[in-house]
């Protein structure tokens, strides 16, 4: 066992690995998190404060990826964006955008798949603020948008941070969805998680080990920083 580990370690150093799965993974995670933040804040705001019954329907839809096997989502995205018919055909013929087996497809899949992590944390952030805070802001003449930006969001930094880090980390760890919609094209859709699977299948344990170690270290660092900074932020309030 020890000899095996030693062998893996040294051969890992000696070999030159293709780093593109790692960089691609982080590029995807950054873009996905940025898009989720833009969608997540208004969506969570609406869910937290609307009194319309349709919100339960929307909430359910948002949370579906939590219980569905990722392959189910990936399968339907594949069907939905297939260039042979419907939306996929339209996108390809009019805008020359191909979603399946492309980076765009990965982004769409990841955004949907990580949506509950972003929306649910921001939503509970909104709901935990006392309602008198926004009411006070309204009586002081501030619009809903001003209140959101100047009063609500600055007072829920821990929830925002949790949403960001959870979405980011979750996107890094994705496998099923991205495999289904993205496939395994080196440099385009071959993410670290897929590369690991591929290397193991090819009995190339050293490469799998390298990718895995990088993922483990970075995930650990990200979560560790989250908990440290979250503590600091919550001490202010």
């Amino acid at each position: 066992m020890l000899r095996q580990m030693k062998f893996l370690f040294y051969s890992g150093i000696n070999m030159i690995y293709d780093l593109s799965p790692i960089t691609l993974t982080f590029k995807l995670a950054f873009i996905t998190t940025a898009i989720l933040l833009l969608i997540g804040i208004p969506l969570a705001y609406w869910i937290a404060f609307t009194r319309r019954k349709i919100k339960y329907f929307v909430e359910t839809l948002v949370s579906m990826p939590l219980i569905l096997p990722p392959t189910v989502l990936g399968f339907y995205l594949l069907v939905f964006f297939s260039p042979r018919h419907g939306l996929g055909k339209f996108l390809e013929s009019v805008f020359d955008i191909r979603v399946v087996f492309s980076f765009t497809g990965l982004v769409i899949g990841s955004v949907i798949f990580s949506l509950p992590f972003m929306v649910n944390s921001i939503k509970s952030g909104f709901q935990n603020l006392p309602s008198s805070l926004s009411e006070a802001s309204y009586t002081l003449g501030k619009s809903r948008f001003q209140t959101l930006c100047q009063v609500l969001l600055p007072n829920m930094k821990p929830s925002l941070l949790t949403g960001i880090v959870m979405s980011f980390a979750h996107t890094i760890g994705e496998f099923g969805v991205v495999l289904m919609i993205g496939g395994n094209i080196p440099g385009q859709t071959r993410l670290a998680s897929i590369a690991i699977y591929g290397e193991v299948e090819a009995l190339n344990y050293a490469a799998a080990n390298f990718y895995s170690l990088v993922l483990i270290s970075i995930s650990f660092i990200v979560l560790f920083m989250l908990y440290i900074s979250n503590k600091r932020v919550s001490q202010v309030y």
Partner: protein
Amino acid sequence: MVHINCKKRLLSAHGSMDLSADFSVSPGEFVSFFGPSGSGKTSILRMIAGLMNPDEGFIEIDGETWFDSLKKFNLVPQKRRVGFVFQDYALFPHMTVRENIRFACEAKNDFSFVDELLRVIHLKELENELPLKLSGGQKQRVALARALARKPKILLLDEPFSALDMEMRIQLQREVLDIYERFKTTTVFVSHDVSEVFKMSKRIFILEDGKIVRSGLPQEIFIENNLSGKFKFIGKIVDIVKDGFLNILVVQVDNNLIRVVATDDEARGLNIGNNVIVASKAFNPIIMKY
């Protein structure tokens, strides 16, 4: 001049209640709503501020209509010039004392007014502190200054002293009156504390189960007419001691404890915690400089 005539069905723990508020307030007047919790006091303030919509009726402030169910008109809270002081202060935790007050100013560079308000509430030295560092009384003063910073047409005080201890309460009551004397803003004050309402306001509305059952001057409301006492005050019974033929009541008035002798007849039906009027008819009280 403030005219309000509103009806609203409220859902409470004891089922639904019909709130009906029909009253006027003269410009610069300080009026109070007094009643047990759940009688609809806070709802009246929320309807004036636009945080709650009446089912029917109208709200008119200084000739401006803020709400009119017949014309289907409802001014958003942002456009109503109210100063609302919340029971839980509702200060913005991420802003300093100064920033909280400046946030409410319409002219962003109105520094002199912010400075004036900071001086009025005696918090000039703490202007750069976050609300977290302040005591309850200090927080409430900031909330008051913030409400005034908007230069409101009407100031709404929702049980502003309920979370404070007795000493702080009395001090703040005095300060609120000082501030009122200074700015003369039309003020509606809500409380369930008799002595507070009695001391603070020029006119009192008694609210029970959503209806204004009585209104008038504090003396008319709280002091029985058949009592033409030379001096009288309202206090709370803290203790009742039976000493031979006598009953000695310990009554708290503001933060003073007073011992009053009561006959069996007078003491019957009085319990610790009751609010009572202590009055003297026959003798002149002795007054000395303290």
